[in-house]
């Protein structure tokens, strides 16, 4: 085990050997349990055994064939993409200006408004779902628009927070310079502000997208049987009786989200 630069002065030294054992005993299981749930579905989705029991037996792609041959799964996949994209666009359209307003200056009521924006993150989704069900039914928001609106509410805090912290980093002198050189506010926003906050906006957008993509509880309330998203489809399968197509779907979702995250990391790495 490598000794860290701070290791000597920290408590880590008082009995090197015991510290090592302690580290291994606590960190080992923690690391395993952090990684295992994401990975376990992959071998099981390729296993011949329909009971999802360990260890996996044989190798088969039949669950994937079933998955991608099922009209219901394919429709839910399309719905999920529609909803997540619409919700993300709504989040960007309204969340970025709000984030800029929070990040660029101090105004009366700013703290309270910020708390208000963050609130949907901590209010239990079941509670939100019940309220939305009633209110949206009255407004006539159903299926795509109902879901997109609700996912906008739970996704927009991410965009606002990431945009806000990106906007705080901007040196105001740059904006003043652009203005004094004759650029109109729109131009300043487009050519100066936006490029400077783009990374924050991008990570916020990704969080909003993934939030919508994964959300089950609200979607359960707001979707009709003809307009289900992937998590809703999955949830109904799970509560009715599981077969490995669910594992195959889980593995597919894992692949999609992981590639999105890697793409973001790559972009971030290229920028820095």
């Amino acid at each position, binding site marked *: 085990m490598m000794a860290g630069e701070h290791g000597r*002065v920290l408590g880590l030294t008082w009995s090197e050997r015991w510290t090592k054992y302690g580290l291994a005993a606590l960190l080992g299981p923690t690391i395993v349990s952090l990684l295992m749930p994401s990975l376990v579905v992959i071998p099981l989705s390729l296993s011949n055994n329909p009971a999802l029991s360990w260890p996996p037996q044989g190798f088969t792609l039949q669950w994937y064939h079933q998955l991608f041959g099922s009209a219901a799964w394919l429709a839910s996949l399309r719905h999920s993409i529609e909803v997540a994209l619409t919700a993300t666009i709504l989040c960007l359209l*309204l969340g970025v200006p709000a984030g800029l307003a929070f990040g660029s200056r101090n105004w009366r009521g700013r703290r309270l408004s910020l708390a208000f924006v963050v609130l949907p993150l901590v209010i239990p989704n079941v*509670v939100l779902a019940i309220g939305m069900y009633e209110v949206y039914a009255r407004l006539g928001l159903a299926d795509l628009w109902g879901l997109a609106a609700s996912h906008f509410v739970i996704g927009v805090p991410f965009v606002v927070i990431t945009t806000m912290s990106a906007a705080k980093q901007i040196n105001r002198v740059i904006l003043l310079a652009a203005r004094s050189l004759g650029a109109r506010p729109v131009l300043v926003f487009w050519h100066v502000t936006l490029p400077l906050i783009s990374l924050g906006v991008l990570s916020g957008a990704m969080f909003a997208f993934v939030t919508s993509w994964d959300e089950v509880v609200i979607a359960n309330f707001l979707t009709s049987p003809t307009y289900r998203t992937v998590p809703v489809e999955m949830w109904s399968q799970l509560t009715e009786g599981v077969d490995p197509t669910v594992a195959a779907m889980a593995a597919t979702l894992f692949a999609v989200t992981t590639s999105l995250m890697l793409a973001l990391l790559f972009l971030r790495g290229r920028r820095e």
Partner: protein
Amino acid sequence: MIALLGLFLWPAAKVISGTVTEPTNIALGDFLTVLSDPTFARFAANTLRLAVLVSLIAGTLGYFYAYAMYGLGRRWRVFLMICVLFPFSTSLLVRSFAWSVILRDTGIVNWVLLHLGLIDQPIGLLRTSLAITIGMTQILLPFTILPTYSSMTKFDPDLLYAARSMGASAVQAFWLVFFPCTRVGLMAGLLLVFLLSLGYYITPVLLGGPGDQPVAVLINSQVVNQLNWGLAGSMSAIVIAAVLLLLAAGWRLVERVFLADR
């Protein structure tokens, strides 16, 4: 900009007011019914027990994990960071489902224990409150590790040298200097984990037994099975009140650690 802000606040307001004002069509008596109802009390006790247990475990493990990240070398740090972020690649639903596969009688845990000869027959792990606790702790652990680690990176290690040179033992230096300086991140993480675990629905349903379910499940079943919107509304209002109180109490912490504001 400010105008757009108003436009954006409106839907959020609508939703929240929708939930809060929903019980208006019923008498205040419903609140009393809910509060004196033994079923609600049992589910509420489950919720609180889970939230406290999960926060305590996630806090302890999380602090230790962050400490290891801080104390170990660069390569280990990167590895541990990847391990923390990795679960975010999988949704809460999929991870709860995966835990149900791992913990079932024919799952990995029982398989390993059987092969090690520690048990003769599978032990029932699924459908217990232990299973819910394991699942929720795993899902919420990153939320204590990340803020704790971030407050540790802001710590000035010279303070420890100073403490040691003044005669403090390593243990004293840790408890009297290092821990108090890095407590903010831990507290913020604990607050977040506690708040989030109050509303868990998916994980308890998939991993727990009928006697271990939290309030969120009760609210849902009131609406879906009993069509009792009034009671569900009153329960929701109680949950919202609890969340708001906690959030208001810890708002400075949230601003400082999560929003990097002030």
